[in-house]
Structure formats: C-alpha cells, structure tokens
C-alpha cells in the first residue's frame, strides 16, 4: 500500500515538473529578442551607489567585484514600452538584454518582489537594505509589477541601505517606520 502511494507521488511530481517548469539554457535565456517597435518609451537606470565604499557591505560581496566603482549597473537607457507594461516588465527586459543576474519572487499572480540584481541582494548591507524604485522622482507604494507605465516615465532602480531614506524616499520619515 505504501509503495503504491510512493510511486504515485513520484509520478505526479515528475508530471508536475515537466508541465509546470520551463527549462532554458543560458544561451536560450539571453537570446536576442526582436526589438519592439513602439511609439512609447521610458528611461530606466539601475544603481547601487549606496554600497560604494560602504563599510557595512559583507566581505564576500565587496571582494567579488560585483559592485561597480560608481555603483552604476545599468546607465540611463531608453526602452520602448507597449500598452500595459509595468516597471517590473521593463526592468526584467533590460537586465536580460544586458545579461545581468536577476532574482525575484512572484508573490501572487500580480505582485512580484525584486530580491536581487547582479547578485546584490536585500539585507546585504543592513537589516533594512534592499532594492527600491522610483518613477519620476516619486516612490510608489505598490509593487513594481503593479505600476503601469506611461510614455516618458523615468524609472530609477536604487539600492538603499536605510529603508529608502538614503535615496530620497520620505515615506517612512513622514509616516514613521514600520517594519520594512
């Protein structure tokens, strides 16, 4: 009886693996995609300037060479968008084009959470460090996958070591800091 259950479980797991997982080699993943022709575009840049010269950064990360001297991972780049594209979509596409390491979780169907870019992860600097984005200088309170873009938006992805305070987010200063 036990054995039957075990075999059934294994078969189901294998089926799940085949149907639910998509596999890509490194080459496939970074394949050049067709450029999107579109009228609308946005500007996006990714920076971890706060980490440069910051003594709180772990030794491994410091020595790895993954933190650029100026902290700029992606310089200001223009990127075409289609109807309904979110900040997250653009970030993912840009990182993929530049073959940069990207780690995120899909919390639910809509809400994605950016954990690490270029192997620079949340909490690498302090308990309240991580990736934040701003659009046109304002820090939205929704997940990046829920913010739909408009033509001409300027996206800034920045690594904060201090809950956003060091990169200009006044949310917590105004509203008091709850757990990040």
């Amino acid at each position, binding site marked *: 009886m036990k054995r039957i259950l075990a075999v059934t479980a294994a078969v189901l797991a294998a089926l799940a693996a085949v149907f639910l*997982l*998509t*596999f*890509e*080699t*490194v080459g*496939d*993943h970074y394949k050049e995609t067709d450029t999107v022709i579109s009228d609308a575009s946005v500007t996006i840049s990714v920076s971890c300037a706060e980490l440069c010269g910051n003594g709180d950064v*772990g*030794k*491994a*990360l410091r*020595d*790895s060479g*993954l933190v650029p001297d100026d902290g700029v991972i992606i310089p200001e780049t223009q990127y075409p968008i289609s109807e309904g594209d979110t900040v997250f979509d653009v970030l*993912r596409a840009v990182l993929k084009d530049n073959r940069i*390491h*990207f*780690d*995120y979780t899909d919390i639910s169907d809509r809400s994605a959470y950016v*954990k*690490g870019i270029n*192997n620079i*992860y949340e909490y690498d600097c302090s308990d309240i460090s991580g990736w934040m984005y701003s659009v046109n200088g304002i820090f939205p309170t929704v997940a990046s996958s829920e913010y739909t873009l408009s033509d001409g938006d300027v996206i800034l992805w920045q690594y904060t070591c201090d809950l956003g305070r060091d990169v200009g987010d006044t949310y917590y200063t105004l509203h008091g800091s709850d757990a990040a």
Partner: protein
Amino acid sequence: MLTLNPVFAALSLIAALILRLIVQGGRPQIKAILRAALFMALITVLNPVFSHHGVTVLFFLNDLPITREAILYGAYMSAAIMAVVLWCGVLSSCMTSDKVIHLVGRAFPHLAVLISLTLRFIPLFKERFKGIIDAQRAAGVNDETTMIKKLSFYIKAFSALVTMILEDSIDTSDSMKARGITLSGRTSYSDFSFHFDDAVVLALVLSSAAYLMISGAAGFVDLSFYPVITPLPVSVKALAAYAAFGVIAFIPAAKEVIAWRHSRLRA
C-alpha cells in the same frame, strides 16, 4: 553554526558516521545508507530551486537562474544537517536514563526521582492502555463500527486509563512515603564516577572549544558561498581550528577504539 565552512561540516559528518557505526555494532545497513543519501540528495537539489544567488549560472528554470554556488551550498547544508541527525541518533543511544539521572541527581535528587518515575510510568501507561482496549474488545461491549464510534471508544478508554492510573498511583505514593521520600537530605545513587581519562577528555574538549570560539569571532575560518565561493582558509590558524574541531568530533570514537584495542590486547 558559527561559521560557514565545509571542512567543519565534512569532519562532523564523518565523525558522526563512524560513531553511528560503532554504536550500532559495525555493520552498516544498506537501507539506512540509501535513505540518508536520498535525504542529502534531496536537500542539495532543492536548495537551487529556492535560492538563486551565485555568479555561475548553469541554466534557467522558470526564468530564474540555477547557479553552481546554490548547488554547492545545498550540498554543504545537506552534509551539515545529516551530521546533526546522526549526532542526535548517537546521543539518544548513548545517553541512557541512568546517565541523565546521574547528571541531574547530584544537584537535584528529587528531580532525579521525578525523571525515574516518568521513565517507569511511560511503558506502564502503554501496557495498561492496551490492556484496557483488549479487555473491552474481548468483552465485546463496545461498538466500533463507525469512525466516530471508534474515536469515542478510544477517548473513553483513555479516560478510564487515567482514572486507573490515578487510583493505582495512590499505592505508589504510599510506597514512596513509606520509604522516606519526604525526608530531607536525600542523596542520589549512581555508579558513575569521574576518572582521570574523563578529566583529560574534558580538558581537551574545553580548550578546543575555546579556540573555536576565538576563531569564529576573529573570522579566519570564514568562507562564503554567495555570490562567489571564496577560497578555503588554509592559514596555520585556520588549520589549527580544523584540528580543534576534529578533536571534539572524533574524541568519542577515539575513546571507543582505544577501549576496544585495549580489550583485544588483554584477551
């Protein structure tokens, strides 16, 4: 773990394996080995599924990178966890009730009595419970046709068990009172004593542990897996730390081997 260093995990695992073989009696069981290997493989494989750190990407799964660093970290974790599992198994075989009571009884003799009572009552409870269930079934006075009725039966049987145990324990407490449990100045009898070799072992273990604490704090045995695997520390200080860990890990096995050889020589 104070520090992430695969040398410690490896030493721990090997020492635990050896000790487990000694405790078990020398013949490794195929089934157990397979199960352990499966367990370790599972952890090694699962880690990259959840952790995508690391610069060496092997392939992508659902748009997320599966990295070499994550796999190696998984392997490291599986070794460390397996070692702990084995150590716990060895501990439970070696740390018999006698030893526990001895350690406790020197300072708290009444606590020793309590532990002893508990150890006595557990098999008694089980036996009595089975007795009640069997007796009820043999008498044929209970309905166990549906699941609910069966559950209700077990609950009633348990309640009867508690009543019976409470009733009988009046005799037990009488027995204890009759033999002076209420007197002050109770001692705790055990036939373990502290010998010279115990002192040697204790000294070795304490000094090794101290050195390990220092090396952990100072950081010269540190190693990271993410984002890049840093090189294995092999400075003299680090090697000394590995040796210190080895001392603590292998002392129990060493003691057994020495004792065994000693008896062989005598015979």
